[in-house]
């Protein structure tokens, strides 16, 4: 199987504008989730990781959503030395709601809100020759976009895939999760006994994948798989069998046995049902021996960007051989206990797993290896 190398990556979040800036704060235990007073989003204060109001302001040409992607993609293109005009390069975008916050500013034109409109503007801005692929598959979008990039490179269709994702928090998104009673009253506590829901977050991430052998020695995206619970549109599987199956398939795709997984960057949204399902799945897939964390306590749930941001933090963890503690975790709160990491841990990380699950019953997983 053709190797797929990670050539460059970037995180634009409330914590910082590069992967290095982000990771240096994370290892100090500094989180982006804060107590927020944003009357334009909610009458009540809430906890979330948000950009300041004046960051990435709409500039007449590009919306805030598009500017986040421009910042993140722009950095990885320079860093990787990628020529967007190269016909061997494809841009893959991942988001759940894109420009939907424009509705709150009275902008209702589908042409301005649409994901295809943003994709066209971004392709034009950077000069990509192919139309971007746009993935919108709830909270697995980022992982699905990476799997897609990996497959397009393996099949020889493209040599380089620029995979980028972003999402913003708006009254639309916040009220929606609120209507499901899914928002935590405080800081979220993934896998903890006292967990009571999610924190939301804003951000963007971008990864350049390449099949070119000159990158031998870089970290690799080794395998991935996607599936569906076929159970409920807004609640996860009761058994975790379906996510377990996706994990098992990812491991098989990577040629990596379950015992070889050193670390799992879980989805860990801190809702009652997600974390329980995920813990069962991790155990069923026999990867429960690995260290586990959820980054939701640092970034909140960044929706269509989450898969990218959390994979990039995992890649940086692998470069540093460091497992970050999982914020908010004190006492096990799932029926099949996991090794949730509670303090900064030095450990050789050869093979790591990243999982995601979302509305619509979707699950996805990838394996990253040295």
């Amino acid at each position, binding site marked *: 199987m053709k190797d797929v190398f990670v050539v460059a990556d970037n995180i634009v979040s409330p914590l910082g504008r590069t992967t290095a800036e982000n990771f240096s704060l994370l290892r100090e235990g500094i989180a982006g989730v804060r107590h927020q007073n944003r009357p334009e989003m909610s009458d009540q204060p809430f906890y979330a990781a948000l950009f300041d109001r004046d960051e990435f302001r709409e500039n007449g040409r590009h919306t805030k959503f598009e500017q986040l992607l421009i910042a993140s993609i722009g950095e990885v293109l320079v860093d990787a030395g990628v020529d967007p005009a190269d016909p061997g390069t494809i841009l893959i975008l991942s988001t*759940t*709601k*894109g420009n*939907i916050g424009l*509705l709150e500013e009275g902008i*209702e034109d*589908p042409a301005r*809100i*649409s*994901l*295809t409109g943003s*994709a*066209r503007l971004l392709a034009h801005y950077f000069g990509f020759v192919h*139309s971007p*692929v*746009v*993935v*919108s*598959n*709830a909270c697995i979008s980022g992982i*699905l976009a990476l799997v*897609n990039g990996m*497959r*397009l490179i393996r*099949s020889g*269709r493209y040599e380089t895939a620029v995979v980028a994702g972003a999402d913003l928090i708006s*009254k*639309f998104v916040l*009220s*929606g*999760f*609120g*209507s*499901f009673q899914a928002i935590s009253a405080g800081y979220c506590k993934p896998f903890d006994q006292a967990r009571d829901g999610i924190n939301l977050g804003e951000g963007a991430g971008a990864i350049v994948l390449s099949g070119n052998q000159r990158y031998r020695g870089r970290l690799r995206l080794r395998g991935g*798989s*996607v*599936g*569906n*619970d*076929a*159970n*409920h*549109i*807004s609640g996860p599987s009761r058994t975790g069998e*379906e996510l377990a*199956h996706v994990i098992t*398939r990812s491991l098989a795709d990577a040629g990596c046995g379950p015992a070889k997984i050193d670390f799992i960057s879980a989805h860990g949204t801190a809702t009652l049902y997600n974390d329980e399902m995920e813990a069962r799945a991790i155990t069923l897939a026999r990867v429960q021996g690995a260290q586990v964390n959820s980054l939701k306590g640092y970034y909140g749930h960044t929706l269509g960007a989450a898969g990218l941001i959390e994979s990039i933090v995992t890649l940086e963890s692998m470069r540093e051989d460091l497992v970050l503690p999982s914020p908010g975790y004190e006492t096990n709160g799932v029926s099949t206990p996991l090794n949730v990491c509670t303090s900064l841990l030095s450990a050789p990380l050869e093979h790591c797993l990243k999982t995601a699950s*979302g*509305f*619509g*019953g*979707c699950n996805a997983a990838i394996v990253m290896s040295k």
Partner: protein
Amino acid sequence: MEYITASCVITDNRVYHSGRLLWEAPRVGLPDFLLSAYQHFGFQYPKFYKMDHLSKLGWLAAELMLRDGLAAAGYRPEEMAVVLSNGNSSLDTDYKYFATIGDIPSPALFVYTLPNIMIGEICIRHKFKGENAFFVSELFDAGFIETYVRDLMETGNARACICGWVDVLGEDYSAVLFLIERKLSTLPFTAENMNRLFNIQNAGHE
């Protein structure tokens, strides 16, 4: 080799099954059309009533396409994939949900503000647990879908796949689904053949 073993096109108040006109409804608005199609074919699936227009349309197309059943093929749930695309994501329901947030935000609408919920509805109905993907593109990109689905099948990630396009915005709608299997049939799985079936409604007007 992969073949298109069935297809369903729903557009312009007409339903086509594998290229044949199955039903033509009287000219009514989209909500009435969706309901009358459900009733006309005698479906019994109470969850249908809770769905948004996009999911109703996709659900109907899948239901009609698979009316002859897949059971005989003996696929396992994990071997059945669903890969869909459209131009407007969930925007039709986004507007409707947004209209509720000043008052009482509706969770029943919010859940449909993701286009892949339609994939979830189809997976629940038919017990498909395999690969999923939802893509947004301006027009139906048959070449891309062919590449993606063929790769899934050739790498052993799927043995059968439902793919296509289901789009709704206001009164504009179209659904075109294809069933792809490695089972000899008359229609090879190619972008050209998908486009030909996609354009069936235009051909019908000639």
